[in-house]
Structures are given as structure tokens and as C-alpha cells.
């Protein structure tokens, strides 16, 4: 299980950024994704420290579930707090994290996490589309939301519309093809994070 998770979080060295109102572009990945525990044994959790950052990385994305459990644990609090204060810690949400249940933590996180990520355990699992949409709509999250995991070329457009603005594509995906996905359509028929549906946008 955890090994699968490790594998699925592997990604290209380059991140595809597509800021709202901007143009898609590739950039060096400055964030290391920590998949979490190597085994599921809960009682080891308290003794487990997140890894040191790889050379060249600016910060660490930790599992949201881990943040919930350990942010205030006595052993790591000081260390994590200092990293968080330095803008070196973000969280990633698993597909089954119910973010609405932890609204207060996420509200507080808005001032702490430089970015968040949402994980796709498999490309055809659409839960993370709703997670991203809720982060934008409900929490008014204005920072970066990154898609991680099984992120494929043909999800990019949907992801970009629900609220993702950066993508850590699976290593086998062709980045040149990926970059071309965002201007396939010049019209839309429902609102999205990026803009209003064409008919409304044109008539207002």
C-alpha cells in the first residue's frame, strides 16, 4: 500500500505551471512530496520524523492526515513550526480526505502553507477534482494547488478548470503534448474557477 503510494507520487522533474490568467510553462520542481509513513502502524507515527529535504528543494509537502496528527505533537512541534514559519511546509490531500470536516485547520493553513497538493491515486479517480473545487470555492484558497500522483495529459484541462494551477505529471507523460492541452477549447458551457461560461462572459 505505502509502496504503491510512493510510486504513484513519482513525477517529472519539471512541474507544469498554469496560473490563472497566465500561460502554461515548465519550471524546476522546488517541492518534495513526502508520501508519509512507510508502514501503516499508527503507534510508530509519533516517533517518525519527516525526511530532510533533498538538495535543491525548497520545501516539503506532507500528508494532510500526518499534519492533523502531528502538527501539535510534543515531539515535532518546534521543528515543524519553524519549518512552517520559514514557508517550507505544505500539505497534500489524499483522495479520501474529507476537507470539509477540517475546515478550521484548512482556514488556519491558508496563512502557513505556501502551496497545497491534491493526490490522484489513479487518473480516473475524480474525487480530487471536487477537493480542488472546494478549496477554491469554499475556502477561497488563492495559493497554488498542485495535482500529484497519477497525473496524465488528458486530465490537465479538467484539473485546470476545477482549480489546479500546477501539475506534477507522471514521469512517462510527454511534457510537450501536455503544454498543448490548455488551449484545446475556446468556449465553455459551465462556469469554472478560470472563468464564466462563454455565453455569460460574452453577454455581460
Amino acid at each position, binding site marked *: 500500500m505505502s509502496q504503491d503510494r510512493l510510486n504513484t507520487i513519482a513525477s517529472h522533474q519539471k512541474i507544469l505551471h498554469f496560473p490563472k490568467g497566465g500561460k502554461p510553462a515548465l519550471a524546476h520542481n522546488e517541492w518534495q512530496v513526502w508520501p508519509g509513513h512507510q508502514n501503516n502502524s499508527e503507534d510508530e507515527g509519533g516517533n517518525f520524523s519527516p525526511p530532510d529535504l533533498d538538495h535543491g528543494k525548497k520545501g516539503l509537502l506532507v500528508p494532510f492526515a500526518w499534519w492533523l496528527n502531528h502538527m501539535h505533537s510534543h515531539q515535532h512541534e518546534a521543528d515543524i513550526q519553524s519549518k512552517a514559519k520559514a514557508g517550507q511546509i505544505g500539505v497534500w490531500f489524499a483522495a479520501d480526505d474529507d476537507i470539509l470536516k477540517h475546515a478550521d485547520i484548512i482556514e488556519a493553513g491558508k496563512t502557513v502553507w505556501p502551496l497545497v497538493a491534491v493526490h490522484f491515486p489513479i*487518473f480516473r479517480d*475524480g*474525487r480530487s*477534482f*471536487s477537493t480542488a473545487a472546494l478549496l477554491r470555492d469554499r475556502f477561497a484558497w488563492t495559493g497554488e494547488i498542485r495535482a500529484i500522483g497519477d497525473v496524465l495529459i488528458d486530465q490537465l484541462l*479538467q484539473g485546470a478548470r476545477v482549480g489546479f494551477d500546477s501539475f506534477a505529471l507522471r514521469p512517462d507523460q510527454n511534457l510537450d503534448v501536455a503544454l498543448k492541452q490548455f488551449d*484545446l*477549447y475556446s468556449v465553455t458551457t*459551465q462556469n469554472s474557477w478560470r472563468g*464564466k461560461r462563454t455565453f455569460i462572459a460574452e453577454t455581460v
Partner: protein
Amino acid sequence: MYKYDAIDQTLVDQRVAQFRDQVARRIDGTLAEEEFRPLRLQNGLYHQRHAYMLRVAIPYGLFSAKQLRTMALISETYDRGYGHFTTRQNIQYNWVTLEDTPDILAELAKVEMHAIQTSGNCIRNITSDAFAGVAADECVDPRPICELLRQWSTLHPEFAHLPRKFKFAVNGAKEDRTVLLCHDVGIELKKNLNVNNGELTADIYAGGGMGRTPILGSLIKQGLPWNMLPSYLTALLRVYNRFGRRDNLYKARIKILVKALGPEEFARQVEGEWAHIKNGEDNFTQAEWDRVAKHFTKPDYKNLPALTTEQVIASATHADAATQTGFTRWLERNVKPHQVPGYASVILSLKPHGTVAPGDASTAQMLAIADLSDQYSFGELRATHEQNLVLADVEQAKLYELWQEAKKQKVALPNIGLLTDIIACPGGDFCSLANAKSLPIAKAIQERFDDLDYLFDLGDISLNISGCINSCGHHHVGNIGVLGVDKDGEEWYQITLGGEQGNDTSIGKVIGPSFYADEIPDVITNVINTYVNERAEDESFISTYRRLGVTPFKEAAYKDKSENAQKKDKAGVDA
């Protein structure tokens, strides 16, 4: 009917280009089959037993003569000279190649058609009443809402990868002709002076479906103002997308979530989500309504006197007795009342006895039917969920003429609503999901009951056949349902009785162990004989069934089996 504007046309053209690129990547190997599969399904392309099958949307069943000619052209150029009209108002081509599909889609786009979301785990083609806008019992014309929802759901990014497929049906008539309660979401449109100032509202039913676990939808919302459908449906789909099961394919439909939570709790969660977005900008505007509704005005009806049936029959007075009988029968079964005096709606039967699969039309038939619609019905047609076609606006005075033309095309059999008007999926002859064949069963039953006098005497009976539990043939809601099952690699058929569509929608009950294919005509005969023996005067099959319960029908169905078993036992003793 609806006409694309620049937005709609651009979208379908760009969808063709996107799919063309996806197909090219599949062919050059950079896109693996496992990852291409959901992409092709979201564009209606299945990989079947022999070839690819392309399912093309006929949104809410409405199409034009021009579109039908393109469907015919596609059947001739890219398929084997026919198309199959489905139970969800789509048309399927069974013999296409992957390489050709982008070109087929480009042909379709030229006549404002597409295959978007006719499959896959997304919001599917929206179905409605085939008699929308013309039915005598209509309260609200559902077509503008259907079209608004078609556009809203098209390429919806958040709901592109739901736990499972998601089907909407929309009804606005007194009699439900959409099997509303067997849909993931059923939308019942109403106008009531006491609700929403007499403006259009919707009642929402959720969690219905057929398949392995047939369940009728539950009413979860009443009196929703029409313009708030997008925000409410977003809330509903968001709850399903987040919490519908993804661990088990057979438990992933919304019906399982609604059942697990209970309809009240599901409705509460949807309300909770909706509260945050109900006043947002997702909702439809009046300008959007106007943009769409202007296309659903009434055609240029003439001022005609309403004719009685006797007056219509009188148009055949010069014909011989057999012809007059044939025409009268056709009027009785295939012609439906209309909102406008002097007009009627005509159902063209795609259920000839034993010659072609239910719902199939050949290239030549499609071209001829397109001409008939131009000549008799303002160039418009509808596809019914029973897999027949409708000319909705025919002058009563021209019914006799039309009947004679329809007979030439072999689409005038007066069997609408009768035992041989069988709903059937393509089954194991084509579909790779099927456990058993459907078409030979349909053929055998149609051949067995080929006597129109007898069929008329039996009256309204629905017989629906599905080749597997996915229930594309809607066997659960047939008065008699036949389901193909696999037992140790052999094809068997399970019988259900007592299903019903319409306002008393019911799920049929399985009567017992399944039968071999060659036993089915006898089983049906025994069930029908029981009805004939037991019915009160003018009592329909379903009423008789409801009065007597399953037992006498079940005993009759297994009569031959027990006789055979006794013979075998006896043979054993003698030996």
C-alpha cells in the same frame, strides 16, 4: 428544434480535434489502452466483441431529417448498412474502426451532433419524453430544460470521473414515458400557481437505477426553481463524487450511496452543500433560457378541424377490407393524440417480427424515413426509449397516405405496446459485457407470436430483454423481463414478472431458476396462457398479475420443466 450557435458549434468541432489527437496518440502507442479506455468511452466508443461500437447522442431523443440522413450516410460509409436505436435515445454503430472515428465525429459535427458523454463515468446523454412538445397530456415542455442541462453537463470538469455512470431523465407530462424513477436523477418539471409564483419548478428524484440492484428513485427535493438546477445538481453530484463508492464497481452507482445513507440523509447533505452555492453564478439566467427556448416554439401548424377516429378511417373507404383492417389497427396502436387539433403523432415500429434486431434501421430505411419526416412532420423526428421512431406532427388527414408509405419501408407494423414491441439490448451477439444473446430470444418470441389478431387480443404487454445484469434492455421494468445469465459458461435466461414503466413504475420479481434459450418461447406462451385464462374482461396483463400475484404465472412457467423432470424420473425408474 434546437439550433447550434457559434458556441455550440465551436465546442463540438474542438471536441473532434481533441479526440482525433487522443486517437492518434493511441495508435502511435504513446497512450496505453488502459488509459485511453475512459477517454474513448467519454466519447461513446466501446470496444466490442467483433469491432469498435460508436454510440452517438440524440439529446432528449429529438433529431432532424438532415441529421438522420447523416446517420444513414455513416451507416453506409463506415458501418454495415444499418444503425441501432437504443433505449436511451442514442444510435449505435456496431462495426466501426478506431481509425475512422474522428472522421465520423467530424461528419456528425457538421449536422450539430456528437458522441460526447454517451458512455463513461460521467453525466450521460439526457433523456426525455419522445412526445415532448406535442403530447396531449403534457404539463410542461421539457425540451428547454433538457437543452440547458445538456450544455451545462457537456465537458463538466468536476464530474468527468464520477464513481460510475450518471443518467438524467426529464419529464413534463402527466404520464411518465421516461422511466424517470429508474434514473440516477429524475427531474419532474411542474408549473403550479402556488409554487414559485407559477414559474417552472422541478421535483428531484435521486438514486434510481436498474442494473444488479434495481431501485426506484426517492424524492429528495420539491419545488426547485428551474434556474437553480445547475447549483442544486452541482451540490448533488459533488456529494456523490466525494462519497460514492469507488472500491466496488457494482456498488458505485448513486443508488447505493442514497440507499446506504437513506434518502433523507442524502437530501440533507445535498442541501448542506447547496446552501453554499445556491445563490452563485452557476444558476441559469433568463437570457440563457431565452437563447434556448426560442428554438422550441411550435411549428407552423395549419388551422385544421380535429377528426374523429371514424373520420380518419374513412380516408381508407376505397380500399379493400383487409387494408381497412390494417389501417385501423395501425391507428389504434401506432398513432397517439396531439395537443393541436387536426394533428397526431405517429410511431414507426422498428420491431418487425423476427427479421431484424429491435431498434435496427437500415441505411435505406433511414433515408426513406428522413423523407417521410420532411413530407409529413416538419422534418423532425424523435427516438423513443422503446427503440422506435416518432413523426410527431402529422396531419390526421394524411395518416392514411403516411401509413401506405411507412408500409413500403416495413416500419408500419401495428405492434406498439404489444408483446412483440420488444425492448432488447444488442446482447452477446455484439456486446462484450453480455452473458448471453438477446437478439435470438427476441426473434424467437416474435416468431412465436406472429399472429396480429392474437397480439391485439392480448393487448398491452411489455417484454424486455437484457443480455446481462447491466440491464440495457430494461428487463426490470418489463411486464415480462428476460435476463441473460451465465452459468458455467452456458447461456441461461432468468424470467422476471410484474415490472412496469409509467406512473406505476415497478421492478419485476425473479420467478425462479433460469431456463435454456430454447425453452423461452414455451415459457412465455405458458405465462401468456395463464393471463388469457385468468383475466377478467378487458383486464390488462399487468392488472391481472397484480390481482393474482406471481404464483399461477410461476407455476405455468415451470410446468414444462416439471413435466420433463417427471418424464425423466419415470424413464429412470423404467430403466
